């Protein structure tokens, strides 16, 4: 059995676009579920999606528990040994309260990658494979959330390249979710069912393309 941890925000949680509160798609509709179905038996997919999660920031409004860095280590070790960690974060860092350009968001992401490598949460206390996923860009019309993400539209379009720089320089796997999915018009920054489906299938393909010796462990 191989274990993959999906570390993300509301778009990993599966929040339904335009809905408020903790309304989420069913397990088999969310991208980690879709990916698990595509990967087939032999893979355990662990979902760790938190609404509003940032890369490395305590959120002064939503709460310090939204900080993706402080929760990362206990989370990894709770589920270890992990064969693969998929990280898809960055969208919430674009909130105007953080005042961060895309390059800074990418540096936050690179810290998470370093932390994963330091944790020893992989097989035999080594490193797991790490797959950085750049989130799909947000839309121009964010409805009620417009002021929260002011300036985020442009910055979100720079994330994919900035994240790829990080993945390349740290030597980890990378995928641009914007290649297969886009945010829903219902709120401008969440994935709808179709987007989850396409992203889940594409990521399963990416996971398999890594190549896993001896099939099943």
């Amino acid at each position, binding site marked *: 059995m191989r274990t993959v941890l999906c570390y993300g925000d509301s778009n990993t949680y599966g929040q339904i676009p335009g809905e408020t509160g903790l309304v989420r798609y069913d397990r088999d509709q969310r991208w980690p579920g879709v990916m698990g179905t595509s*990967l*087939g038996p032999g893979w355990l997919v662990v979902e760790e999606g938190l609404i509003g999660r940032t890369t490395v920031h305590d959120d002064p409004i939503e709460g310090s528990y939204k900080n993706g860095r402080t929760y990362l280590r206990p989370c990894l070790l709770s589920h270890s040994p992990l064969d693969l960690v998929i990280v898809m974060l960055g969208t919430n860092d674009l909130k105007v309260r953080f005042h961060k350009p895309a*390059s800074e968001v*990418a*540096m936050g992401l*690179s*810290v998470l990658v*370093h932390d994963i490598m330091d944790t020893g949460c992989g097989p035999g206390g080594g490193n797991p*494979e*790490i797959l950085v996923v750049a989130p799909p860009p947000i839309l121009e019309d964010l409805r009620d959330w417009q002021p929260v993400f002011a300036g985020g539209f442009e910055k979100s379009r720079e994330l994919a*390249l900035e994240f*790829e*720089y*990080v*993945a*390349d*320089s*740290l*030597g*980890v*796997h*990378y995928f641009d979710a914007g290649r297969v999915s886009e945010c829903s018009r219902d709120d401008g920054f969440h994935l709808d069912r179709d987007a989850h489906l396409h992203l889940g299938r594409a990521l399963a*393909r990416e996971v*398999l*393309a*890594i*190549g*896993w*010796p001896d*099939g099943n462990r």
Partner: protein
Amino acid sequence: MPDMRHAPPRRLRIADREGGMNQLSVRSHNERLLLSLLLQRHGLSRMEIGQITGLSAQTVSVIVRSLESDGLIVQGEAQRGRMGPPTYPLRVNPEGAWSIGISIGYRRTEVVLIDFLGTVRGHRAMSYKTSDLLDIYVRLPRLVQDLLDEVPADRRKRIAGIGMAVTSDIDHWKGALQLPSRNFIGIETEITQITGLEVLVQNDTTAATSAEGLFGATRQMDDYLYLFLGAHVRQRLVLNHQIHSGRIDLPGSGRQTGILDLESELLSRGLEIDGLWSGASDWLEFDAFLDPWLDKVADSMRMLVHEAMQFVRFDTIVIAGSTPAHVLARLHDRLGRHLPETTILISEIDRSAKAVGAASLPFNSHFIV
């Protein structure tokens, strides 16, 4: 001293990542390693590459992504085996890089455009009754330009460069002393000025040998003897992928029988010989003279093989030539009778092998380990 883990990411190699099919750049060592492997064995998966090279899965992932986004390789559809997860084969993208090769021969100069898998995509040639360097020097740039004009503007930037294959005695040819550059290689500067492309020069037999190793019958072979039937017979010994030339190819240095001997035979009988050097002819008009000539060719090749075998052991011979395919097949039969214990392969590169070899030079300098 700042903590280096908090330094901004390096942006060196992928600085032009956004643009897709951009200007070709010289690749890093690991990228070359991966391209060389994929040229040898089409369809390797990322995991197999990791196993062969010892590179980690994540390192392979980074290299594959970089080569893929520059259009040099493509990932195929999932291959499902009887058991285990599907694998994703990687292939060199034939459209990813192109190259131009020039071969200057005793009776014929050829210019080819090849893709990244060595397939000839464009071809120009000129024949002459006697080799006059001054004449070639004057006409060659036009020939290259004609071929380049065939390439759509957006594909021009995918051309890695120009290779030129010449015989080792070229500066003794007629007209050499009248050349503006005093030696023939000087034409390289002229072609670079016209085309804006770098020109690399190599011996023609060595170039043909390396084309075979890159694109042809010996892609996965370490040790073999390569025999080329051109104006003369030439040989190269390949040991552990290294090409050794041994005896210098000078006229009169061997008893080797080549196409020039067939030419004198035909001329002495007052026959028309244009088809001999046309590149398109199947030589059927010379059929009556081929068997005795091929006996002699096979004989001199056999002697070359025995000579080489006194120094080093090899099990495989590859025969190539600027002849029609059926001529090589007939030569193959004869050699097989002479050398029953040796595996004899026929080249998988067509009769423009020397020009294809020339065209592989820019690939070697940009993309291959």
